[in-house]
């Protein structure tokens, strides 16, 4: 049982010009290979997203931290299955003064599911990276304790990958036998 629900989602369409937020413009100036985009939202400001190559993620996060994105919010992984790169790690950080949220996406290929760990910049990424490792199998180089966190230690496989079955058991209903 593989992908449910249709096609692999396309990436957010990036407007060609540079982002218009002052913090992001500074980041864009220092990192040329990072592409910025915006996702529109209903009755709220647009969501600013940066697509960062794997090798530059630690430098990028350090620059973001220095610029004021002090609050670490989230790190999760998505399995796009048929796309290359297959996995995407999504980091979410928040600047408080002035308030601005930045979503950083990093592509991680299937044949080499590793990524540098950002726990050196944001210690709060510790548990989140362990969770991404546990559920997706993405290894974070430099993580102090990369072990399973949600599943038992002797579990085999990474459940949230798209090629891992949901694991449902067949459910019998009362009328099932009467059908014969």
């Amino acid at each position, binding site marked *: 049982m593989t992908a449910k629900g249709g096609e692999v989602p396309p990436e957010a369409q990036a407007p060609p010009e540079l982002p218009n937020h002052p913090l992001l413009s500074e980041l864009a100036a220092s990192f040329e290979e990072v592409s910025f985009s915006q996702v529109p939202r209903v009755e709220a400001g647009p969501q600013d997203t940066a697509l960062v190559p794997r090798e530059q993620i630690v430098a990028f996060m350090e620059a973001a931290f220095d610029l004021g994105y002090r609050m670490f919010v989230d790190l999760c992984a998505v399995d796009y299955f048929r796309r290359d790169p297959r996995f995407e790690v999504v980091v979410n950080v928040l600047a408080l003064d002035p308030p601005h949220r930045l979503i950083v996406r990093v592509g991680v290929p299937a044949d080499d599911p590793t990524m540098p760990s950002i726990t050196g910049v944001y210690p709060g990424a510790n548990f989140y990276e362990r969770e991404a490792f546990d559920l997706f199998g993405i290894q974070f180089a430099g993580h102090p304790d990369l072990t399973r966190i949600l*599943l*038992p230690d002797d*579990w085999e496989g990474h*459940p949230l990958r798209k090629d*891992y*079955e*949901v*694991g*449902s*058991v067949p*459910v019998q209903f009362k009328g099932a036998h009467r059908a014969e």
Partner: protein
Amino acid sequence: MAGAAEPSGFLLTSLEKGVNWARTQSMWPATFGLACCAIEMMAAGAAHNDLARFGMEVFRASPRQADLMIVAGRVSQKMAPVLRQVYDQMAEPKWVISMGACASTGGMFNNYALVQGVDEVVPVDMYVPGCPPGPQSLMHGILSLQAQITSGEIKRPVVQL
């Protein structure tokens, strides 16, 4: 000495009835609240719906002092050995109530992470449906369990012969 023969004779069956009745009137639950059902279990023990009037005044944290294990909530694969260990630490006679849909059958989470029914791990005496069952449903389950123990439908040895 014979094996565990059925007690017979007028005195012994009255004793059995008396002991069973006494067992139901002061059954102490072990705290095994796991998820949302635990909140409703606590609500059942709170003042509005009072479990203390049925003898369940104290929820004992130590399984060694408890006789009833109310499995309230979803049991994950990681928690199952802990559940079994706590059950084993309880002294006889002990009973188990499986509270809620997740404990009884895995509930709406038919997936890799949950044990699909706590009766795969421990023997269950009473299932209470609901998601979560309100305090009144839980009390109905507890009172039904008490009735079944008193009537002898659910047997636990009274006298070992």
